[in-house]
């Protein structure tokens, strides 16, 4: 059917093109710039912009508070979400630097700015600066790399309002084993829900196994303890899973992934940003080809905001259209089920673009 349609369009185009061809139409070559400009010691510069149109069926901000695109109930709202500027380069023979500055309607903030060593011995690597904590699969990544258009509820309710991050040191080790085993130990100052920055220790072990030429299995375990003052602590734990099937020939793949987080307070009264609890998300994403992808996601998290105490569940479906490697349009529809039968629909239409030279995305 698609071929027939294409053939019809081509037939129509042939007639139009014949006249153009007779006129000897040609685009003159432009002149000017140096084709090797990228080699002249400039860092890789990139800007990633995200815009959205949202239509929510309930007051998301009050009943299901979270980071991410949202608007007043029943009103179509256009949002400028973020412009992320990236500067990335090897700065000397010993280290590379990655800097990401986020411009949002609310603030301008340094999301990440860190050095990474290039040549420590024994499989070690050190990051120093401000960085997203190496906790779980999603937390260390930037939103434009996600298959869905917002973060799972559990991340915002249990780890941090936006991203668990802060200044500090992250020492990692690639184990000398036939499969991928990476161990992170990080010490950072974090303020997951605003307020005072406090010392946080993070540990993570991630492993990847090649089950076949096409199938990769990833497993991760994460733990963090944040000092809450006067001998109290906030403990976080997480487990994450990835199964990706991508036959080597072609661009199509299927990816099943998910995470489970738990949070527990020790030794003091529970802070105002929530008590003990657990949450999880799981999603299946199918990239049909270079241009189209579809996914479904399930989430569970402690209910927040004005919702009755209990558990919030959410189901989402997303369709992504990648016009090129540098433009993406996505449509996500979600249904949230909150305690007391206060359910509601959400819809987000997202558009984003990348300009400049941006580093490769994580696996």
């Amino acid at each position, binding site marked *: 059917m*698609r*071929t027939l349609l*294409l*053939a019809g*369009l*081509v*037939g*129509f*185009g*042939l007639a139009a*093109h*014949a006249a153009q*061809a007779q006129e000897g139409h040609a685009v003159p*070559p*432009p*002149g*000017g*710039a140096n*084709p*090797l*400009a*990228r*080699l002249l010691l400039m860092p890789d510069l990139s800007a990633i912009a995200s815009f959205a149109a949202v239509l929510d069926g309930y007051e998301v901000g009050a009943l299901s508070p979270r980071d991410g695109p949202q608007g007043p109930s029943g009103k179509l709202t256009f949002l400028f979400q973020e412009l992320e500027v990236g500067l990335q380069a*090897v700065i000397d023979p010993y280290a*590379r630097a990655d800097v990401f500055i986020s411009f949002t309607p609310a603030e301008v903030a340094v999301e990440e700015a860190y050095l*990474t060593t*290039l*040549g420590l011995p024994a*499989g*070690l*690597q050190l990051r120093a600066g401000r960085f997203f904590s190496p906790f779980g699969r999603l937390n260390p990544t930037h939103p434009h790399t996600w298959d869905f258009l917002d973060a799972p509820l559990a991340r915002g309710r249990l780890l941090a309002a936006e991203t668990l991050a802060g200044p500090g040191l992250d020492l990692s080790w*690639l184990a*000398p*084993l*036939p*499969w*991928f085993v*990476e161990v992170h130990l990080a010490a950072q100052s974090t303020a997951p829900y605003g307020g005072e920055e406090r010392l946080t220790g993070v540990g993570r072990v*991630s492993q*990847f*196994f*090649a089950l076949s*030429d096409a199938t*990769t299995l990833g497993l991760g375990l994460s733990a963090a303890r944040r000092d809450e003052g006067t001998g109290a602590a906030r403990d976080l734990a997480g487990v994450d899973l990835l199964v*990706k099937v*991508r036959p*080597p*020939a*072609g*661009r199509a793949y299927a990816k099943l992934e998910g995470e489970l987080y738990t949070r527990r307070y020790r030794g003091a009264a529970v802070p105002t940003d929530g008590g003990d609890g657990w949450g999880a998300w799981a999603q299946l994403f199918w990239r049909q*080809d*270079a*241009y189209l992808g579809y996914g479904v996601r399930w989430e569970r998290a402690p209910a927040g905001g004005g919702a009755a105490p209990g558990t919030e569940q959410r189901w989402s479906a997303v369709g992504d259209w990648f016009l*090129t*490697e*540098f433009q993406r349009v996505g449509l996500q529809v979600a249904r949230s089920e909150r305690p007391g039968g206060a359910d509601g629909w959400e819809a987000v239409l997202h558009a984003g673009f990348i300009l400049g*030279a941006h580093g*490769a995305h*994580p*696996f």
Partner: protein
Amino acid sequence: MHSLRSILAAAVAALALAAPAQAAAALRVITTTEGLASLAREVAGDRAQVESLSRGVQDPHFVDANPILAVKLRAADLLVDVGLDLEVGWLPPLVNQSRNAAIQPGGPGRLTAGGLVGLLDLPTGPVDRSRGDLHPAGNPHVLTDPRRALQVAQAISLKLGELDPAGAAVYADRTAGFTRRLQADLARWQAELKPLAGRKVLTHHRTLSYFFDWTGLQSAGELEPRPGTPPPPAHLASLVTLARREGVKAIITENYYDTRSDDLVARLSGARVIVIPGDVGGDPQARTYQAYLELLVRRVVEGLR
């Protein structure tokens, strides 16, 4: 205690079995493509263990930055890549993740082949992505020309000699032998291709500039209106017109591309689609660089006959 020791011994044995077989090779060479791996094997023989990060059936622009590949890079003595931004979407994070300082760009264990040969398709004028996902420093598909492949093999030989001085003479001898064998084939291939010189063909992506430079075939254009962008119907229509006008008899496409657009243009213009392997290993008959070139030449000659 005894049982604990047994368990530990079993675990160590299992790890040893899981590890890739380490021959008595002096060096471990990792390449980004199967074509480069084949050249490295020709040069190094048993003195190096050679492995490619990508498969010949893969589009080398779009390999996943799978962390498992970083494990291969961790112990590499030499990383041979094409460069020219061919692997920019996946290689840099793997090199970083490998913690192997020697294979960083400019490091003693890094050889970037693209910079060692005469390059084609260097864009002139402003370079931005209105022109598609182009390669600003030149076309990276250099190994479709055996003359340039020999230059790359020579560079690999010299690099291996630097890293393993005891084997330098071996590498030089093997490279000389490979050169003789390839040049013998080259003369035969050129004789087969000579009648086709000047013939115009279409390609799916601009992957065969160096092949055309060697064979004298001419490019009439690409199915992709700009590198990395899908062909809209108007562009396909223009190609049909062009193919009829210029007498284009073939559309050559690598087997990792979707050929529906190629098939359509071929059907409407009377041309034929020639499907070729994208690299060594991209077809069961293309297990070595020579076999890959043999297959490429044979398919093109038969397709244009």
